[in-house]
């Protein structure tokens, strides 16, 4: 059966690869290169390898896969590249090429096949919770229950959030009415919010309600497709995209909000390649922080009563938001909160080191990047580090735990939700 893959091929990027002048500027910015120091992992090397792969000068062997797997998709190289070579996209196209020629397993089949099947996810989430009690060692943490995964493909030492008692989408009806004259906002929950961090979704609902919006949470939505794309599995990503197009198209929402920097990038940047319908959908996608700021939530927040005890909060900017030029809105929301004190952190834009499956394949490098981040949080003197991406939260929390620090990672919307709750 011919499977559908609407994504660009490596050959589509030939001209952009030719734009690389081998200047080496990316050496100063690629976090993976910063840790590993070998040319094959820096953007310049990856472009060279992609080019050689395209010209069949080099075999798609395991070593090549390994080198292409060493990309966080942080986009730092693209932002700093004087000729704007889209290295992150080229890496994904190279992964697809390798998968097409060699089969998939190399970039993490297990996760992709799971995320492709929401029903299976639900089922697993249920049984995993039950199994958790027997299987997972519990790690006592001030922040609540955290688990250590015994699965072979996840490092044993990694701390992970507990699965939600009830996935977010199951907790709420498909339509939540606001004020009739207000727009209809469709909520894209994303896998992590749905299964791991429902409190982020709850915060979003409170914030949207505070503005009187009508909210739709389409039942049949699925994963944004970024993990599949990252695994080089264009087919699954295309299938997921089609599914989301159906799920959201049906309701004709005014806007579609994402709660996760990566989902935002998946539904905007990556959707744009897929065809006119998808592009039209992508145009309606907006990051929740961006939406809330543009719709005046700041004023609502500023009018809340001042808290007497304010925790110190610092901000980490997810790469995917930064690349979309959306680093300001989360900061603006936090600045407007009368319940916290915002403090500065060094290198707030540095990548947390997660990079999706990157941290599964290259936990050591990922951990080193995380350690630098944890240290920056500590030095900022903050009690909490807030961000706008559940993936970053998971990585930041793991990094803080690994460093034995008491700080906690959370989503901006959790803090917004809490503040709004106190009012009501």
């Amino acid at each position, binding site marked *: 059966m011919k499977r559908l893959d609407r994504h660009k091929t490596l050959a589509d990027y030939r001209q952009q690869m030719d734009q690389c*002048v081998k200047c080496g500027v990316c050496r100063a910015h690629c976090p993976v290169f910063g840790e590993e120091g070998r040319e094959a992992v820096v953007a310049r090397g990856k472009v060279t390898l992609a080019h050689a792969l395209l010209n069949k000068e080099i075999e798609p062997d395991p070593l090549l896969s390994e080198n292409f797997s060493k990309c966080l998709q942080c986009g730092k190289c693209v932002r700093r590249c004087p000729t704007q070579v889209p290295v992150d996209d080229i890496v994904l196209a190279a992964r697809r090429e390798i998968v097409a020629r060699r089969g998939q397993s190399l970039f993490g089949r297990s996760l992709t096949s799971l995320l492709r099947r929401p029903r299976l996810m639900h089922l697993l989430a249920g049984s995993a919770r039950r199994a958790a009690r027997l299987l997972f060692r519990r790690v006592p943490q001030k922040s609540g229950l955290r688990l250590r995964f015994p699965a072979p493909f996840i490092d044993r030492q990694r701390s992970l959030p507990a699965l939600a008692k009830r996935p977010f989408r199951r907790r709420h009806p498909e339509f939540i009415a606001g004020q009739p004259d207000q727009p209809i906002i469709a909520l894209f929950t994303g896998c992590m919010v749905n299964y791991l961090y429902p409190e982020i979704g709850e915060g979003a609902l409170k914030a949207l309600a505070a503005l009187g919006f009508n909210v739709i949470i389409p039942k049949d939505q699925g994963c944004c497709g970024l993990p599949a794309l990252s695994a080089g599995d264009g087919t699954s990503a295309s299938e997921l995209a089609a599914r989301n197009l159906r799920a959201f198209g049906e309701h004709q929402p005014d806007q579609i909000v994402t709660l996760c920097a990566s989902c935002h990038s998946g539904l905007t940047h990556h959707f744009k390649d897929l065809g006119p319908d998808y592009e039209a959908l992508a145009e309606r996608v907006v990051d929740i922080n961006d939406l809330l700021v543009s719709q005046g939530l700041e004023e609502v927040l500023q009018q809340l009563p001042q808290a007497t005890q304010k925790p110190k909060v610092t901000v980490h900017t997810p790469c995917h938001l930064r690349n979309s030029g959306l680093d300001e809105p989360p900061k603006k929301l936090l600045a407007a909160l009368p319940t916290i004190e915002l403090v500065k952190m060094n290198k707030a834009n540095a990548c947390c080191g997660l990079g999706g499956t990157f941290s599964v394949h290259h936990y050591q490098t990922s951990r080193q990047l995380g350690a630098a981040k944890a240290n920056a949080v500590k030095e900022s003197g903050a009690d909490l580090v807030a961000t706008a991406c559940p993936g970053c939260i998971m990585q930041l929390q793991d990094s803080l735990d690994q460093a034995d620090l008491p700080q906690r990672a959370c989503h901006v919307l959790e803090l917004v939700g809490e503040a709004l709750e106190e009012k009501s």
Partner: protein
Amino acid sequence: MLENRIIRIIEGIVGEQHVSTADTDRLCYSYDATQRQHRPDAVVWPSNAKEISLLLKMANAEGIPVYPRGAGSGFTGGSLPIHGGLALVLTRLDAILRIDEENLIAEVEPGVVTRQLQKAVEALGLFYPPDPASLKFSTLGGNVAECAGGPRCVKYGVTKDYVLGLEVVTPQGDIIRTGGETMKGVVGYDLTKLLVGSEGTLGVITKIILKLLPLPAAKKTMLVLFDSIDGAAQAVAAIIGGKIIPTTLEFMDGTTIDCVRRNTDLELPQAARAVLIIEVDGDSALIEKQAETILKLVNPLGVVNTWVAANSEESEAIWQVRRSVSPSMRKVNPDKFNEDICVPRSRLPEMIRTIEAISDKLQIPIVNFGHAGDGNIHVNIMVDTAEPGQEQKAKQAIEEIFAATLKLGGTMSGEHGVGVTKAPYIPMELDPAAVAYMKAIKKALDPNNILNPGKIFLQD
């Protein structure tokens, strides 16, 4: 291809994980910023002088070429393994060994990235002035080997003015020290000066002792836009004539400005056909006055707009404009021939006019920018080699530009070295006896022609 036996020996020296013959690595160490490609047979990442010494001894015994490499950001192909052999990557030697605040020196390994050292010394109130535009990624070893210069040279000089001593592995594998830690020292030949700028052909640098200065109290950065290149060139003369030596005097012509527009938030109006970036540093009261005088001096020369940075972020924004220049060039045409001629400061306007005439005559775009303060112009001849005749024209332009440069008392490389790209033109600048003198040095130190063969001179 290297025999397995040789690979085993190398593995024995550096450890298995620090040598690779994989295609991926051979490809990834086959290029530098010239964009030419030559694959090494193997890539080696040694970690200290001892290993490098053993590698060179082996290479001599087996007749294998060895190509030292820092960040691979060179513009003349100095690190390219044009005869295969070993790419000797020095980035694992990346320790700042010490910073001596009392004697104002730093001792570093060659793989330290220039900016890293600058940050470390600046945190202590000290200053390492050489600042090639590649400072965020090029290595100090590469800087020393090329004698890199930068915008601050006008006032502070180039890399060689800061190198006090070196530890070097000779081509035959001995480990020697040259110079030392003192500001003065005249025992024997000045090998330090010989090695600085030797482009990795006379020894592998494994330690560098650098002179530091106190960090200037303040600096002021200005971006001045002119309506013509003549105005900018005259401004340089006016400033120096006014007995002010700014820290930097960088210029860009109109095409250069067009190239960088996308890389900056600064307003660069179309009417601006030349830019000077002027920086002064020192005592804050003094630099305020200097800045004022400079602006007064240049104002009558067709100034379109002036931008004075109010703080270090704004100053950084201005410098970002400059740093993004050379890689952005490709927008004009796909192939770039990049030369970095240097003429006596006062001949700059004449030189620019000559280049423009050559550009008009041959009908190919030539983009100019560079360090106006020291007469160093980066001449970028932009062509599309896919079009017939263009490459030939570019070569003709290069020759005519070099000839004009030499006639004005200049040199065909201000800071990028000779490497492979300029080797063919050496006879234009150096007389045969001088070339023979240089070759004799190379031959005496590297009789088997192991270290970076094929560079500087056409045949070794």
